[in-house]
Structure formats: structure tokens, C-alpha cells
């Protein structure tokens, strides 16, 4: 008598079926059920996501510490995966503020003045970030292509972060509802942290473009220049004020 899963081909066929159905058939061999496979997939993705978020972090800290650039003068612009990670990076900081852990946010998640998310949303299961430390308390560092900065090196968080999402209405990878949900998640947290009295104003905006598909549009390119123009204008304003004060 040949049971289900008795041959190699039967096992391979079985693997494709819903694990619940396989169980009903009284199979002797159980392949990884979907609930076991998915945590493995999630765990596999997570270390990459955390490493990518660390890459953002160390790049920001390098510009801030080594190049003396205020975080408010930095634009982070991501496309697709880069956009999801940029939004996730902001979300991880906002969640720390929301959990009344502003100290951790101020210590470990420096924010740029502008976060532009081009054709990207959020993870359904966001990675744990900052990731748990493996030593006495410092967040694990990342890139060596940028000079390392200690996790506890202080930085000056900007007072305001502009979070600007933009996506084409016909983007095949990011349905409209998903983009709206991402903007909504960021916006709701920005309201929440304001209510909690934190000294951080996050302004979230969403622009949807007719047509275009999954690509970088002229509007997205302009958005980068507009953000830089705002930074330079603010810098000139600050410099002229200090000149007047010293006159």
C-alpha cells in the first residue's frame, strides 16, 4: 500500500499543497508548514533590512559628525526598496518617540531633515530597529565604507522632518491603497508624537502621479532640488542673522 508522500515525486507534489490539507490526508512526512517557513523568510529578510537601516544611520552620522553638516540639511531619497527603507527608518524613530522612548531615538536614530520616498511604502512586518545590541549597550555599527561612529556619539536631531511620499497611480508594485496606508501610518505617528509633547515636528505629504508606472519621474527629480533649495535658503537665512547679530 502506497501512502501519500511515499515517493520523492509525491513528496514534492505534497510540498506544494496547503499544509492543512496535507495533514488531513494523514501524511507521514510533514514538510515545513507555511507558518514555519514564513518566520524563516522574515528572519532572513530582517538581517538585511537592519543592515540597510544601519547603512542609512552611519551615512547620516558621517555627514553630521565628520563633515559638520546639520541633520536638518540632509535629504534622504529612496526609490522602491530604498523608499521602503527610508520610510521604515523614519517609522522606527517615530515608534520610539511614541513608546515614550525619546532617549533611545535621540541616541540611536538620527533623522535627516527631508525623507523622500519615491515609489515605495512600508514593510508589512517591519524589522526590529534599532536592533538589539550584542554587547554592553551600543547599537551594532555597520558600514566601514564610511568611517565608523560610535553608537553613543551625540547628534542634534532636527526640529522638523519633512516626509514626502510620491508614487505613480499605475505603479505595478505599489497599489494606491498601500501607498496611502504608508503615508497614513507616518502621519498618525507624527500627530501622536506632537500630542506627547516631543520636540519633533514631522510633516507628511503624499503626491500621486497620473500614469508613469514604476520609475523615477521628473516630478521626483524636482522634489530633490526643491528640498535642497529649501535647505540652502534656510542656511542663508541663518547666516545672515548671525552676520546681523555680530555687526
Amino acid at each position, binding site marked *: 500500500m502506497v501512502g501519500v508522500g511515499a515517493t520523492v515525486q509525491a513528496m514534492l507534489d505534497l510540498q506544494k499543497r496547503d499544509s492543512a490539507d496535507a495533514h488531513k490526508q494523514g501524511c507521514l512526512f510533514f514538510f515545513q508548514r507555511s507558518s514555519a517557513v514564513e518566520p524563516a523568510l522574515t528572519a532572513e*529578510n530582517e538581517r538585511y533590512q537592519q543592515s540597510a537601516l544601519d547603512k542609512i544611520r552611519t551615512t547620516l552620522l558621517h555627514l553630521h559628525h565628520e563633515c559638520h553638516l546639520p541633520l536638518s540639511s540632509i535629504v534622504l531619497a529612496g526609490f522602491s526598496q530604498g523608499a521602503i527603507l527610508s520610510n521604515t527608518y523614519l517609522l522606527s524613530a517615530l515608534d520610539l518617540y511614541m513608546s515614550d522612548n525619546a532617549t533611545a531615538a535621540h541616541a540611536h536614530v538620527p533623522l535627516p531633515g527631508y525623507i523622500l520616498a519615491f515609489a515605495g511604502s512600508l514593510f508589512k512586518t517591519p524589522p526590529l530597529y534599532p536592533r538589539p545590541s550584542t554587547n554592553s549597550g551600543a547599537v551594532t555599527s555597520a558600514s566601514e565604507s564610511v568611517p565608523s561612529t560610535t553608537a553613543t556619539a551625540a547628534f542634534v536631531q532636527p526640529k522638523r522632518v519633512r516626509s514626502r511620499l510620491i508614487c505613480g497611480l499605475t505603479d505595478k508594485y505599489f497599489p494606491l491603497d498601500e501607498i496611502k496606508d504608508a503615508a497614513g501610518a507616518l502621519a498618525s505617528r507624527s500627530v501622536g508624537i506632537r500630542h506627547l509633547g516631543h520636540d519633533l515636528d514631522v510633516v507628511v505629504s503624499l503626491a500621486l502621479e497620473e500614469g508613469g508606472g514604476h520609475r523615477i519621474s521628473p516630478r521626483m527629480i524636482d522634489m530633490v*532640488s526643491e528640498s535642497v533649495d529649501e535647505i540652502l535658503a534656510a542656511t542663508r537665512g541663518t547666516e545672515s542673522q548671525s552676520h546681523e547679530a555680530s555687526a
Partner: protein
Amino acid sequence: MADSTTRSDDDPHAQSPTKYYLSYPSPSHTKAAVILMHGRGDNADDLADVFLPGLQRRYGGKESRLDEQIDRGKDYGPVTLVAIEARDHSWYPQSHNGGCGRYCSSNA
């Protein structure tokens, strides 16, 4: 050797390059920075190429990627363009909502 392998497994993008355009960032002349983060299968140079012409026309700086030996320390303009790159050109292997969706729902 084992330590560097372990570290690389924990931090896949730690050794991936960071590339600079327009002008190297410097305390003496940089007023603004743009960090670019590419999508799946892309790279820093190709993404920078999309933004570089417009930014160079507007703010000055070199039209091509900067050379560490030649350009470091030179003031080409107030804006630096920084493009970070993923190992194997992908920031994470799985889709952003692939297996996670069912994991989230079965978590309840």
C-alpha cells in the same frame, strides 16, 4: 577570518560602497547633502545618473563620479550627492510583503 565572516553575515551591507558626486562633503564648503538609496537590482551609479545632471546644473560640482585621489578636499560646490549601494544590488532578498503578510495574520 571567522570573525569577519560572521560579521558579514550579521551585517550584509557593511562593506558595500558609498559613492560621492558633485563635491566631497567637507566642513568648509558643504551646505546640503542628498543621500540616494536605490531599488532592487539597481546600483549607486545608475541612480545617481538620474539626478546628477539636474543637480549639477543647479548647484555646480563635477559632472562625473568623484575620484578620491583627485577630488578629495576640493570645493566644487555647496551640495554633495551621496549614493549608498547594497551588497549584490539588493537591500533585502524577499519581497516587502511576500511571506510577511501571512505570518502577520497567522500571528494572531
